[in-house]
């Protein structure tokens, strides 16, 4: 068949999955905390690991986590990447930094942005702190924290991050 230059070569085939997402009790507590400007994790009764955001059970021990732990909004950079490629629908202009940060008092990291710095200066073990939106704008969402910014504290030994 000869190529029909005026013919159809592409078709939209979108798939939309509609969910009713229910956070569950552990993650709901985390979200209620965010609404109040506080990071809340949960401690495993078996191994003492503190999870944030808590999912309600310990991945290592397979038991329910019950005890809420209020965490600092200071954290340590566990890993990071500099994003140079624009992602459709993402309003943030590259290059920017996405990092896994471990809040003080927790044993696992979550992903957030790092800003107010030279991208080239960000490093594993660096100390950072949450920059919050104005309190009037707080909702049940992680983006109550706009990003984390470096603070003037000594780096943490990479081996000790999250310990």
């Amino acid at each position: 068949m000869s190529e029909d230059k005026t013919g159809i070569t592409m078709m939209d085939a979108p798939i939309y999955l509609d969910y009713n997402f229910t956070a569950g009790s552990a993650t709901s507590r985390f979200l209620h905390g965010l609404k109040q400007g506080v990071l809340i994790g949960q401690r495993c009764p078996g191994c003492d690991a503190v999870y944030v955001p808590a999912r309600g059970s310990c991945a290592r021990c397979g038991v329910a986590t019950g005890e809420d732990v209020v965490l600092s909004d200071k954290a340590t950079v566990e890993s990071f990447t500099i994003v140079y490629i624009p992602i459709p629908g993402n309003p943030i202009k590259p290059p920017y930094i996405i990092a896994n940060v471990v809040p003080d008092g927790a044993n696992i990291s979550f992903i957030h942005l790092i800003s107010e710095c030279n991208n080239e200066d960000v490093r594993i073990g660096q100390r950072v702190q949450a920059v919050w939106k104005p309190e009037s704008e707080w909702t049940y969402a992680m983006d109550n924290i706009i990003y984390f910014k470096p603070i003037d504290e000594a780096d943490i030994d990479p081996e000790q991050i999250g310990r």
Partner: protein
Amino acid sequence: MSQTSPDVLSQRFELGFTYTRSTGPVVGHFLTALKNKQLVGNRGSDGRVYVPPAEYDPVTAEALQDYVELGDTGIVQSWVWVNEPRAKHLMDKPFAFAQVVIDGADVPMLHMVDAGSESAMSTGMPVKLRWAETTRGHITDIACFEPV
């Protein structure tokens, strides 16, 4: 955001995969014809006519090119009645999904029949293609089939 119990948060959430697919030459030919309100199939090595056209011969696996222009009438070979259409169905009233053998074709195509009620449906019934108000080169250019 709403709360389903005093503590547990719940929220509607839509995950969208906004794909655009390349059609390839055969499906592209079919869709281009739809845009012009023309149904096109193709003929396999055993003489059978497929619509929508098959990219490869089911018997010999050879690429198929022998296009055949077809009319807009056919026969219902089998069907199922959808009494309560769901949000993602393309009709907002009860309809039939049916295997329709287009006149001149040998292999049925799956589409919808807007028959009004289940009692108006029967195997072997003749149907006629209803085109969408505007065609754009998409399978939805065929709005549905309707009883003749």
